[in-house]
């Protein structure tokens, strides 16, 4: 009885799937899905070649500091970094005094309350503060950015596929470019609308963010590195990789120790196994 019911249920599911299959195949023939511009013109990110990639990857502290400078002078005008605190900068090689100075001199102040009147006010940042948002709230951010919301950058390197390379490619020298004539010929309706910018590394090809890096030497590095367009893009990608994954170095180190430890365990377990079973055929 169970088997008869099973065969009937199986036949029913298969019949409905056959109907569905018929529908899929006939639609695919009579009304094939059109090619999309995103499908054809979206590019996979270029490799930024960051030192943090790979099993034994470590951050290049000077590069991360340069990236922080790019963030401070370019990105921070619109983007928040709300999960990172000023004190965290000590991890990328700034001294306690330097961190205090960076917090104190940060252009955007932290919201607070006037101690005398109780009215809303702002105060200078201290090391334990998170990076303050450049906009008071989402409405203000949209109002200032053509109704687009600049995303928080703390986790951007993990919130996109191949995030570090994505950031590098998006703002690097070949990210923003004129829309290819080929694309316009093939998909005339996908002309980049006013206020948006063509960028093949962006998921739907048209990004609201205006090109943040435009010329070589836009940022003057204090360590003497030549600030080419790609160098700045690479550095800010390194910085945002660090903000997304600040414990990466500790993780890699612990991982190395763990793997060695477990390998020794495997070796001992294998020996014990051979020893215990030596007289038993199995």
């Amino acid at each position: 009885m169970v088997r008869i019911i099973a065969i009937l249920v199986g036949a029913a599911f298969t019949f409905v799937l056959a109907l569905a299959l018929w529908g899929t195949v006939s639609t695919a023939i009579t009304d094939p899905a059109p090619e999309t511009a995103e499908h054809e013109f979206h590019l996979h990110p270029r490799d930024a070649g960051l030192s943090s990639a790979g099993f034994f990857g470590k951050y290049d502290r000077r590069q991360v500091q340069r990236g922080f400078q790019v963030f401070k002078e370019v990105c921070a005008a619109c983007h928040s970094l709300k999960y990172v605190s000023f004190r965290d900068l000590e991890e990328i090689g700034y001294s306690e005094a330097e961190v205090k100075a960076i917090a104190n001199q940060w252009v955007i102040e932290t919201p607070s309350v006037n101690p005398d009147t109780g009215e809303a006010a702002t105060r200078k940042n201290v090391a334990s503060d998170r990076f303050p948002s450049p906009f008071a709230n989402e409405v203000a951010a949209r109002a200032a950015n053509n109704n687009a919301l600049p995303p928080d950058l703390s986790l951007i390197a993990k919130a996109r596929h191949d995030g570090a390379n994505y950031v590098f490619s998006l703002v690097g020298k070949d990210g923003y470019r004129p829309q290819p004539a080929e694309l316009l010929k093939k998909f005339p309706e996908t002309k980049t609308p006013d206020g948006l910018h063509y960028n093949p590394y962006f998921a739907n090809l048209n990004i609201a963010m205006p090109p943040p890096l435009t010329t070589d030497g836009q940022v003057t590095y204090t360590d003497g590195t030549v600030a080419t367009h790609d160098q700045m893009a690479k550095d800010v990608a390194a910085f945002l990789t660090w903000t997304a994954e600040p414990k990466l170095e500790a993780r890699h180190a612990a991982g190395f120790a763990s793997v060695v430890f477990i390998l020794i365990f495997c070796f001992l377990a294998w020996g014990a196994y051979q020893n215990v079973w030596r007289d038993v055929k199995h």
Partner: protein
Amino acid sequence: MSFPWAKQYEPKQPLMRWLDEKLPVPRLVYNAVGAGYPVPRNLNYFWNFGVLAGAALGIQIITGIVLAMHYAANGGVAFGSVESIMRDVNAGWFLRYAHANGASMFLLVVYIHIARGLYYGSYKAPREMVWLLGVVIFLLMMATAFMGYVLPWGQMSFWGAQVITGFFSAIPLVGESIRIWLLGGYAPDNAALNRFFSLHYLLPFVTAGVIILHIWALHIPGSNNPTGVDVKGKQDTVPFHPYYTAKDAVGLGVFLLIFATLIFFSPNLLGHPDNYIEANPLSTPAHIVPEWYFLPFYAILKSFTADFILPAKLWGVLAMFGSILLLFFLPWLDTSPVRSSNYRPKYRGFLIVLLVDVLLLGYVGGAEANARNVILGQLASAYYFLHFLVILPLVSSSERPRALPNSITEAVLTKHGGTSPAQTALAN
């Protein structure tokens, strides 16, 4: 029950004797996973995966309890509390990555454990109850994993919850009311997040309870083995300890090695980038996909695209739940008295196709829904149901199995070059 030749627990220490009289917990352990449990001598490494699943549950419970000390189940702060675990809690990044990847490892070893059971006929008499309890554990795990994925309150958490609870709205007439009742609102929000957290904390302990029943039910007939032949005598078995504790330790080592590689070197490999974006009810992600371990079932759900009496969505939901619930009937769908597929050449072929089929479903579940993938998914879904519901009952009543060995010991000795019954009798 145990075999009559099972070793008896005989405490020599006065303290252990005293304890054995008052509360014989050491005796229980001795008989369950110690020298008092005789196990077939010919188990291969596929028999490690039960112990590995137990280890994975233990790791999940320990890391989960500590994570719960730092996590806040509130839509406004949940995402931030997870970030503070990653950044400010001592070794918080380790706990969270271990817990997230631990879920993947748990499901991975359980899938291999289930495949082992399918291949070697471990679901057949007299072990039907072991199998039934196993399916219950699997369902509990799926519920727990789903609710756990919602807790970080990222985009995939939120939209996954939206999609999965949306299944209930496919039920005619009362579906929408049930969905709202389950969520505690019209869309996932604080009420849903809080109850998911509560249940996510509860269900692992329920799972642990059912695992105890699973092992209890297993110990009545004893473990199956790669030949599927019953244990005939003492020479067919070895005590669980030290023989299989030693062998399980090797498997555990390899398990931990893979687990550690994931946690420390590629912790986000199996996750989705969108879950690092805070939940936003106003912005739907381009592709909503579940975690990898649900992809085959998701593919089945998506394959039903035609209305036939019932709406397509309801067919999809019925098929998706049916694809798991049919496992409950497996012991009665397969009438072959031969357990191990090694001796069932025809069925073995179909089973290997099924394994490939499930992998294909997994691929389709995560892939772009273009015509080619939808067609692949529909064909693969059809084979899934045909395999269990039609092929299995028919093949098991028609095929001619290969000759079985007379005993486990004979099979072992044949493998090592000796075949005579005399040798079998002498072997110990």
